[in-house]
């Protein structure tokens, strides 16, 4: 019951926020709604029993990436930008194609019902096995044991991104 209410609340908020991100004229407003969406998504993670991801989403996405976004928007704040046409010329085509994509994917989900053996996608999911360890410990174990090489590669990726961002940001190289 609570779970359902929470799910529909967060889902609605996420989708609404997403639509507003795309339609807002002012980039800061877009960013605010993107933050809303990200927080709502974090809420969805909670309904999925992924507490660690909930926190990671807020710390990294909201507290890190979005701060960077807002920072840059403010640095390049142009009043002119507000009076320019916000959508490009391919809008209608792009919109149509996107809706086609949406319809296709929705159909795929809907069709899965008839293909599945026992409609597994639509049944309630497996109850997660309750372990003594919390979600955080389990993810930590996975990250540092099974996925240790991807983890290291990700850290190198971050390092490269860091260097790249610094180089890009430099006034004179």
């Amino acid at each position: 019951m609570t779970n359902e209410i929470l799910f529909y609340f967060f889902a609605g908020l996420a989708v609404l926020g997403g639509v507003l991100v795309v339609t807002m004229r002012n980039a800061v407003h877009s960013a605010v709604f993107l933050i809303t969406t990200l927080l709502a998504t974090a809420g969805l993670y909670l309904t999925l029993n992924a507490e660690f991801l909930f926190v990671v989403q807020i710390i990294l996405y909201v507290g890190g990436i979005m701060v960077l976004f807002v920072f840059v928007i403010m640095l390049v704040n142009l009043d002119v930008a507000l009076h320019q046409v916000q959508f490009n010329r391919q809008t209608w085509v792009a919109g149509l194609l996107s809706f086609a994509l949406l319809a296709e994917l929705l159909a795929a989900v809907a069709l899965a019902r008839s293909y599945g053996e026992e409609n597994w996608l639509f049944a309630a999911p497996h109850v997660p096995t309750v372990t003594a360890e919390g979600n955080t410990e389990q993810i930590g174990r996975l990250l540092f044991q099974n996925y240790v090489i991807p983890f290291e590669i990700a850290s190198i990726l971050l390092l490269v991104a860091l260097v790249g961002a610094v180089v890009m940001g430099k006034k004179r190289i």
Partner: protein
Amino acid sequence: MIPTSHYLVVSLLLFTTGVIGVLTRRNVIIVLMSIELILNAVNINLVAFSQHLASLDGQVFAIFVITDAAAEAAVGLGIIIAFFRNRQTLLADEMDLLRW
């Protein structure tokens, strides 16, 4: 419990919104933000399936996706700053030179 398909639908809607944003908006920063939306939609899927299959690998992948999003945002915004410094514009369709 909420069926996994519900999560898939939410994720789909977010994904499509993101795609629309990427394809239609002229402001590069909003395009970047739409990409974040797409990545986020993917994450919902990953976590939903992680619960569905009672395996945490999906969540680990979601963490990698977030890492990737961070890297992308840093470099992307760096490029935007560099571009803005040279051209004083943020519009994607004015970025039509291969060099400056």
